[in-house]
């Protein structure tokens, strides 16, 4: 067999090898944090602080719907920390948790409209009209479950026009002006700033969602993972979360 053929076969075989093997020799340790979409802003900030305090350590963040992340954690996703938007989704990941989840923040639901409020909504009850198009999260996501409870509580029968996969997608529908309103977390409304107008939802204060965080069984850096959880629950972490609009756990 010619030399060229050997090279071709070697190249083919090399392509089959898992590329994940790269980086195992890397001196830099990387921890991966799976976090609910509503934590996007504050966890990005906390990850920067963690990296600054731990030279040579990189924090990789994956934001998604809590339900999706919990499922990924159970399926053995290579991650170290899981933070979800409610305890129900955290419980569904129980098999993958290395320690007891700790509550670190709370959030309330609000109604947001595009800045110019095209449907002239003045109250949450205004959603109960066929002329108003509003969006919520899918019922399996914590933000969707909370929204459904509040809609039922206020006796609103008109269905949403769309169920989005996570809360950031709901917010995007509103900031793009595609929907007249959306039910999101107070923190998302604050992060959107002047792009949205925020309306209170009656009874929202009685339906706080609390965020748990835990380290994962499959973590390859359990010490760093625990330290990240410490940071989130520490005074520094709590300050960051509070300034993003989260309440105490």
């Amino acid at each position, binding site marked *: 067999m010619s030399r060229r053929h050997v090279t071709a076969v070697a190249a083919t075989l090399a392509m089959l090898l898992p590329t994940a093997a790269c980086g195992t020799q890397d001196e830099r340790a990387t921890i991966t944090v799976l976090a609910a979409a509503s934590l996007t802003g504050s966890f990005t900030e906390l990850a920067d602080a963690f990296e600054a305090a731990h030279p040579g350590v990189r924090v990789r963040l994956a934001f998604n719907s809590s339900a999706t992340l919990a499922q990924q954690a159970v399926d053995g996703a290579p991650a170290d920390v899981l933070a979800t938007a409610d305890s129900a989704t955290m419980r569904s990941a129980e098999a993958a948790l290395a320690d007891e989840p700790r509550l670190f923040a709370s959030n309330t639901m609000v109604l947001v409209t595009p800045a110019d409020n095209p449907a002239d909504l003045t109250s949450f009850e205004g959603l109960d009209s066929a002329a108003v198009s509003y969006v919520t999260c*899918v019922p399996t996501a914590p933000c969707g479950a909370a929204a459904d409870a509040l809609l039922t509580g206020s006796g609103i029968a008109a269905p949403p026009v769309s169920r989005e996969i996570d809360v950031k997608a709901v917010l995007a529908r509103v900031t793009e002006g595609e929907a007249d309103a959306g039910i999101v977390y107070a923190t998302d409304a604050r992060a959107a700033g002047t792009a949205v107008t925020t309306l209170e939802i009656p009874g929202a204060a009685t339906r706080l969602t609390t965020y748990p965080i835990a380290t994962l069984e499959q973590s390859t850096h359990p010490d760093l993972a625990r330290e990240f959880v410490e940071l989130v629950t520490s005074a520094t972490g709590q300050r960051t979360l509070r300034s993003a609009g989260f309440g105490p756990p």
Partner: protein
Amino acid sequence: MSTPQAPSTLGRPPWLLVAPGVVAAVLLVVPLVTLVLDTPWASFGSQLGRPEVREALAITAWASFVTVLACLLLGTPLAWLLARVEFPGRSLLRAAVAVPLVLPPVVAGVALVTALGRNGLIGRVLDDSFGLTIPFTTTGVVIAHTFVSMPFYVLSVEGALRASGERYDVVAATLGADRWTTFRRITLPLAMPGVLAGAVLAWARSLGEFGATITFAGNFPGTTQTMPSLIYQALQTDPEVARTLSMILLVVSIGILAALRNRWLTTP
């Protein structure tokens, strides 16, 4: 169908082709086999009976049917224009038509929002003048599907038109046929294999379409939730249900494909 050449004349297939071919076949077949093995078949019937699933199947079937229809009615003339008519910017248009092929479907959805969303260039006019909003409607689903599927159809038909060449068109013209008659009686019948192949490709693309649909049209049971959207949502909570739903989509698609193959595709 021609039978393969006798192996003795060409020699044994070289293992440099056989080995990678086998790897490719394994990669394509194994995940499908494991999906079949992992499907909780006992719940297949009860899942199929759920109203949500029936609605999603109906929307998927309807959207893919209208998509193919739109491809035939709109895509065929476009393919003909690209293959037969000289006009300025033709090659540019051909390139533009092919772009959705390489576009990530989510980007296709974002692009559709900028054009047809409530604040989009065309969408704003439709909303202001006629009170029409396209996102969050089944029409939006069909438009998203047509946008991502049409390029497959147009390129397939254009290829067939080019392959059959202009000679027969010219002969028909010299015999007195006008251009419309030539198209109907000569050009289109000659391009029929490309039309059928393109229609099947567009239909298959539409069945599996997810990213552009959920980004542009949204996700609500009964109006915009297609099977792929429902499968994605089910994956969040119950992967077993997601596998069953995937299997339902797979069985239905393969069933229709097999029926089409037997009825039309084998007859030239």
